[in-house]
């Protein structure tokens, strides 16, 4: 890159050109080598040979330096007019660099070199003043290249030479010496009056061609000057005379400035005409002219020759002349020269400038003043009406001067003050002029660092920026593209180093505009639009540079992408400064496909879904983005166009208008089509944020639904265990249960699955997705990608179908989405588990906590520069540990399929009476290719869940809980014959199953669930068969109607004495008698219950007694509608063994044991248990059934609603001790036997006044030995005489079943009815509790 150093006026330029076949690397190597020689001491330069050319030659003792600079390109042709105005702008010498290994090729190298030099410079040019060609010998050095003398200008540098650098230095010094000698020649020409006229002829004069000059000049004879004395005024003559003698001024100049001072005194007496006249007569030769320009040229040459004192003197002279006779441009240039001289002097006097810091003014202030003056002079000169215009050169000079001044400030600022570092930066900026060491480290762009530099150097950045800002203006349009780009680049670089990135971006935007002009112009036909001054026109805005030639086929000569890429990078940078990240959609090279590092986004981990603070100026951003797109369109670079459009849509869609969105989208899709047509390897990444909102597995149809069961289920079950009871966990809270229930859905291999995917489109246009497929892992999943169009600004649900091909776990990670022409992208969608939700909410709160807070302002608050600083690292750390869980399906092997072929129910409805049992039939058909070898039916009905709920609530008493459980387990609405459970149903075959249905009041509906499976599969591998198997299920709903028609209530148990009932006359019915037939005298009781018919039809009810040790008996009665019938049935008393009757009331289900809430005493508990067990026993013995009168329907009559009370229990239970009493008398003589007294209707008929024996037989009926006593009572006692005690008659210890007899003599002393009672009590127990048995004897005493 061409660079305008501050001290460029003092740069001795030597152009380096490659000659002959030289590789780029070799050339670069030697160029780098040569470029290290920045300075050459004047004392090293060999003095010239000819005296008259020694004017600029340094004396061997002089101390200055030549400052070399080695450009690689000559200045553009348009700058040639400046050749005298600014010699330092042109290469003074040319060095060709060649390599050679053969002697004979040297001549060709020489010829090539000369040709190249002729080619590079116009024929009439002043420069180069000297040429040289360095031929670097290649190879091992065995060939000795011998130059000889026949090829002048060619220097061989042997490869075996040790210190090449020193050699090169010497050669360079020689070359410089030649050039310096040539300076004299040039100046000699100019010093002639004619030459001076030429010099003053135009604003930017050129040296007259030798042919244009009068002969004497060409002869270069000093006398020739005198030949044209009339042209010159007196001072010039003296001047010319001085020059003629040549040695005198030289010596003067070398020693001091006295010589020029004399001349200047003379020249002040100027008799020259006004410069305006000069300008008009630019072609006129011979007009008398000022020597100001000549002195300035002298100064230029002296400064190049390193002789600063001389230069300073001549410049001062020149300025003095210009002041009297304005010549703005030259004046300004001289001022620039003076400024350079000052710097050079500072540099060479070294480093000891600290002393001058003490002065009140800044040390550079003087230099700066000069430059400022120069700038203003240049600025004034611009509108000059010069016929040749030269606006371009004037603008160029102006901007270069501005840059010179700003680089002075910049270097001083960046070098922390006016010191050696600043000098060398100004003099030899090196390759990275705007990256001085103070700004090179990474933290350098931090404002604090920049401010520190300002405070050290005393120059604020704003100051530099103000100066630099002057360089930018409409005049830049006068410059050629190339210069404009260079200058803009320099401005941008300086702004960048200043940390003024927004200004940098502005300038860069113009650089881009300039480059694009060149690009577009270069593409157009030669002689096409000359677009000077149209630097910033973009096809996106005006159609001035049309995309029009669509028909024309553009052929790119070179396929180099670097240029385009660099432009694109610039555009991106500009956008980035304005807060838009054009890289937010990435370009991916599709050829280098790597699936591993494919970017994937976690749905809600995506920061996009949380609103971030907007950054930037939306209106401006949109304008810039449009420009960026236009640039990409002009390149043309279709993938980049698409990238820009889509990035803009992605990051700016909140502020883009609808039209803009449409525009961007259509441009991007067009660009992508173009890209595809062109065979682009790059493609845009998927761009439109996360489109997937949710993925769900659509539930399988109930026919196909799968259930996982443990293999233990196959083992035979206890018959009473049915599905009616809830399969209760032994634990009230089971944490594992919730885990297993979540996630895994069961699906079947090779059967289609459907996933419902919800998509979102936040844009105003319909979003096309070329491909949308599920991203799965685990078992292979066969699914075809589908293309979707999501309507604008809406949610859209679609269904993706697919088939798992193997059994195993299928994980649905998310979706793979591909926009048209883009690259597919995977979006992950984790399950919304608690951790996931926690993570999300944490993230959301972190962001919402930070949003709206503006800690950083300006460029630091751009979203991406904020990201690193603000989001707390804790959240990130937790992110890393987080393993997302995804939707998982368990794919199981193929399953058979069954269907219900036929049912015997009409409309699936059953109508039943309460307690009625009926059955119906279902026919099942196997419609799959697999056999079915497992079938299990479970049932549900509407009574189950309330009962289960009641049980689960646990508010029921033990008794009620038992009743509920009993209902659930033993009286299910539906049941079936389990014998059918194992069987084999071959494919295509049918089977019928019979289901029994029982009417239960409150049941309104029910369901039959038929689970079936193919369990016994052939094992294909040796792996352990899994401990689960899968069943499918068919459900068959049944409507149930149950009529409640008979109500039982008022159950009672009454004492039964056969004698009593037999004696009754009204009980003469046959049935009753037959019932009583079996009844023995005691040990029986009477069971009674009321049955009411609440239905409209009569029913016949039958109660049956099935009791061990008694014949079966039954009683039947017809209950008319609305009437109540009491049923009586004798039941034999029974006694349950103590340990049996006091067992706890069982729970039929395996519910968790819950501590009884009701706190009963042990006695109460015992009583409750006895009641329970006796009731159970009673219901086992007594069964009720009903039958439709005149119909065939029949059923059970449930007694379970009835309660047993304590008195009833007493009746029902056999006494512990049985007392039998009888009366005996002696009918005959003394000593005759005792006979039983005559008995009729259960009553004894003794006679009064006879001695009788009352015999009481007490039998212990309990299962253990008892200590008993007997109490007797006789009523009315006053009419009975007895012997001995009547109470507490000891019976002693009676073993189980043992009988003891007590005899008591007595005598009835009156006629009438007597009743003798006996009570057996256990000794040592309280009176009430101890009573275990009683007996009654009735006697009817008559005197007959």
């Amino acid at each position, binding site marked *: 890159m061409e660079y305008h150093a501050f001290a460029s006026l003092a740069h001795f330029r030597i152009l380096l050109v490659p000659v002959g076949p030289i590789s780029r690397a070799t050339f670069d190597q030697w160029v780098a080598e040569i470029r290290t020689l920045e300075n050459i001491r004047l004392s090293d330069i060999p003095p010239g040979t000819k005296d008259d050319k020694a004017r600029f030659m340094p004396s061997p003792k002089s101390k200055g330096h030549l400052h070399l600079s080695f450009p690689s390109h000559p200045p553009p042709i348009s700058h040639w007019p400046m050749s005298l105005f600014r010699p330092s702008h042109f290469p003074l010498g040319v060095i060709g660099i060649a390599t050679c290994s053969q002697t004979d090729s040297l001549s060709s190298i020489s010829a090539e070199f000369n040709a190249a030099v002729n080619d590079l410079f116009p024929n009439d040019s002043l420069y180069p003043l000297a040429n040289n060609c360095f031929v670097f010998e290649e190879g091992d050095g065995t060939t000795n290249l011998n130059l000889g003398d026949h090829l002048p200008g060619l220097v061989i540098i042997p490869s075996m030479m040790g210190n090449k650098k020193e050699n090169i230095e010497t050669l360079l010094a020689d070359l410089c010496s030649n050039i310096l000698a040539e300076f004299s020649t040039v100046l000699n020409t100019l010093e002639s009056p004619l030459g001076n006229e030429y010099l003053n002829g135009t604003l930017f004069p050129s040296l007259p061609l030798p042919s244009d000059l009068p002969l004497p000049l060409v002869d270069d004879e000093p006398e020739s000057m005198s030949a044209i004395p009339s042209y010159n005024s007196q001072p010039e003559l003296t001047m010319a005379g001085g020059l003629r003698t040549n040695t005198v001024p030289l010596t003067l100049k070398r020693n001091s400035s006295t010589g020029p001072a004399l001349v200047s005194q003379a020249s002040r007496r100027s008799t020259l005409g006004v410069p305006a006249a000069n300008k008009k007569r630019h072609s006129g030769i011979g007009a008398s002219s000022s020597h100001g320009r000549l002195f300035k040229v002298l100064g230029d040459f002296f400064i190049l020759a390193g002789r600063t004192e001389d230069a300073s003197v001549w410049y001062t002279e020149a300025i003095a002349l210009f002041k009297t006779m304005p010549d703005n441009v030259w004046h300004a240039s001289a001022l620039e020269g003076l400024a350079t001289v000052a710097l050079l002097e500072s540099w060479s006097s070294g480093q000891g400038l600290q002393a001058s810091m003490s002065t009140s003014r800044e040390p550079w202030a003087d230099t700066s003043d000069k430059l400022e003056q120069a700038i203003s002079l240049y600025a004034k000169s611009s509108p000059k009406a010069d016929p040749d215009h030269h606006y371009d050169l004037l603008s160029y000079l102006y901007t270069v001067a501005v840059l010179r001044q700003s680089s002075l400030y910049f270097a001083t600022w960046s070098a922390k003050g006016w010191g050696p570092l600043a000098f060398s930066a100004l003099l030899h900026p090196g390759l990275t002029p705007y990256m001085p060491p103070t700004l090179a480290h990474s933290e350098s762009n931090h*404002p604090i660092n920049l*401010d520190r530099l300002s405070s050290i150097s005393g120059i*604020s*950045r*704003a100051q530099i*920026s*103000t100066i630099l*800002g*002057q360089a*930018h*203006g*409409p005049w*830049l*349009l006068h410059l050629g593209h190339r210069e404009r780009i260079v200058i803009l680049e320099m401005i941008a670089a300086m*702004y960048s180093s*200043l*940390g*003024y*990135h*927004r*200004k940098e*971006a*502005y300038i860069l*935007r*113009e650089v881009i*505009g300039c480059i694009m002009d060149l690009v577009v112009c270069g593409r157009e036909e030669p002689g096409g639009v000359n677009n000077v001054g149209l*630097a*910033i*026109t973009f096809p996106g*805005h005006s159609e001035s540079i049309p995309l029009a030639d669509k028909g024309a086929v553009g052929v790119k000569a070179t396929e180099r992408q670097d240029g385009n890429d660099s432009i694109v990078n610039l555009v991106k940078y500009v956008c980035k400064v*304005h807060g838009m990240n054009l890289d937010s959609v990435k370009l991916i090279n599709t050829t280098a496909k790597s699936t591993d590092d494919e970017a994937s986004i976690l749905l809600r981990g995506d920061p996009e879904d949380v609103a971030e*603070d*907007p950054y930037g*100026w*939306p*209106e*401006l951003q*949109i*304008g*810039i983005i449009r*420009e960026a797109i236009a640039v990409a369109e002009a390149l043309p670079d279709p993938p980049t166009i698409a990238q820009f459009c889509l990035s803009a849509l992605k990051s700016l869609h909140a502020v883009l208008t609808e039209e803009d969105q449409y525009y961007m989208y259509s441009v991007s899709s067009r660009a992508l089509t173009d890209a595809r047509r062109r065979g682009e390897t790059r493609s845009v990444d998927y761009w439109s944020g996360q489109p997937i909102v949710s993925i769900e597995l659509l539930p399988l149809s109930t026919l196909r639904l799968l259930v996982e069961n443990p293999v233990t289920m196959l083992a035979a079950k206890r018959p009473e265990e049915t599905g009616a009871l809830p399969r209760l966990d032994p634990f009230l809270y089971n944490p594992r249960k919730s885990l297993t229930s979540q996630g895994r859905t069961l699906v079947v291999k090779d059967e289609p699955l459907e996933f419902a995917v919800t998509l979102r489109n936040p844009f105003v246009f319909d979003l096309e997705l070329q491909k949308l497929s599920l991203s799965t892992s685990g078992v292979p999943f066969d699914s075809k990608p589908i293309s979707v169009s999501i309507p604008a600004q809406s949610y859209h649900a679609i269904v993706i179908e697919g088939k798992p091909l193997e059994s195993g776990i299928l994980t649905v990670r998310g979706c793979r989405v591909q926009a048209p022409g883009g690259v597919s992208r995977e979006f992950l969608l984790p399950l919304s588990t608690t951790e996931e939700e926690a993570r999300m909410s944490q993230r959301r709160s972190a962001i919402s906590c930070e949003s*709206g807070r*503006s800690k950083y*302002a*300006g460029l630091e608050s751009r979203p991406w520069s904020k990201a690193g600083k603000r989001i707390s690292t804790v959240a990130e750390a937790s992110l890393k540990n987080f393993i997302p869980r995804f939707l998982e399906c368990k794919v199981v092997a193929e399953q058979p399929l069954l269907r219900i072929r036929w049912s015997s129910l009409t409309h699936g409805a059953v109508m039943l009476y309460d307690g009625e049992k009926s059955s119906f039939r279902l026919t099942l058909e196997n419609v799959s290719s697999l056999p079915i070898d497992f079938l299990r039916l479970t049932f549900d009905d509407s009574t189950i869940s309330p009962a289960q709920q009641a049980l689960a609530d646990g508010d029921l008493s033990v008794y009620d809980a038992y009743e509920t459980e009993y209902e659930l387990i033993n009286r299910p609405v539906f049941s079936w014959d389990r014998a059918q459970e194992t069987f084999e149903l071959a494919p295509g075959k049918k089977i019928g199953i019979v289901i029994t249905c029982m009417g239960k009041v409150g049941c309104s509906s029910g369901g039959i669930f038929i689970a079936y499976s193919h369990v016994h599969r052939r094992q294909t591998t040796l792996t352990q068969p899994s401990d689960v198997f899968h069943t499918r299920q068919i459900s068959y709903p049944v409507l149930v109607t149950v009529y409640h028609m008979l109500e039982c209530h008022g159950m009672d148990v009454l004492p039964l004495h056969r004698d009593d009932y037999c004696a009754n006359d009204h009980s003469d019915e046959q049935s009753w008698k037959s019932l009583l037939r079996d009844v023995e005298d005691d040990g029986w009781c009477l069971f009674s219950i009321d049955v009411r018919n609440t239905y409209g039809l009569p029913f016949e009810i039958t109660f049956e007694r099935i009791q061990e040790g008694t014949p079966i008996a039954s009683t039947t009665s017809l209950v008319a509608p609305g009437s109540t019938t009491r049923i009586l049935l004798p039941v034999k008393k029974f006694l349950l063994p103590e340990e049996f009757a006091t067992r706890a009331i069982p729970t039929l289900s395996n519910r968790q044991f819950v501590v009884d809430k009701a706190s009963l005493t042990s006695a109460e508990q015992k009583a409750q248990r006895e009641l329970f067990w006796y009731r159970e026993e009673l219901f086992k013995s007594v069964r009720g059934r009903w039958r439709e009168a005149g119909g065939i329907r029949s059923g059970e009559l449930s007694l379970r609603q009835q309660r047993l009370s304590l008195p009833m229990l007493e009746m029902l239970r056999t006494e512990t001790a049985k007392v039998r009493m009888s009366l005996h008398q002696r009918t005959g003589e003394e000593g005759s036997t005792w006979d039983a007294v005559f008995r009729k209707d259960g009553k004894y008929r003794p006679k009064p006044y006879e001695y009788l024996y009352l015999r009481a037989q007490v039998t212990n009926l309990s299962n253990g030995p008892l200590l008993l006593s007997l109490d007797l009572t006789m009523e009315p006692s006053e009419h009975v005489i007895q012997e001995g005690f009547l109470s507490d008659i000891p019976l002693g210890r009676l073993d189980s079943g043992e009988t003891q007899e007590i005899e008591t003599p007595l005598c009835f002393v009156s006629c009438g009815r007597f009743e003798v009672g006996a009570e057996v009590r256990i000794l040592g127990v309280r009176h009430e509790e101890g009573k275990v048995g009683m007996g009654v004897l009735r006697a009817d005493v008559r005197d007959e």
Partner: protein
Amino acid sequence: MGGGQDRHVIQMIANASLDVIEEVVRKDNAMYLKSVDKFNEWTVSAFITPGNMKFVLLHEGKNDEGIRAFFSDVWELYVKTTMNPFHTAHSGIRSTVFDTRVRASARKHL
């Protein structure tokens, strides 16, 4: 360099001048920064509210007092706008009242 007819070019200049304004603000406590920057033949004046909100005005001529008055008018209007509890520092001002009043003030002072 190209005249700057485009609206967004002018916006860009205003935006670019923030570079200078930000630096000046760091040292200078004044709220009104007159002619803080010159760029592309535009002069930039700025006004910094205590809440670090920056008003930037591009102008050509010199009109110090007018600009100062204009800026204080705008400031007052801005403060009134920010009193709206639903307004945040990041949200744009869409109030038409604000717009018309700023325009009126511009007519008066500029």
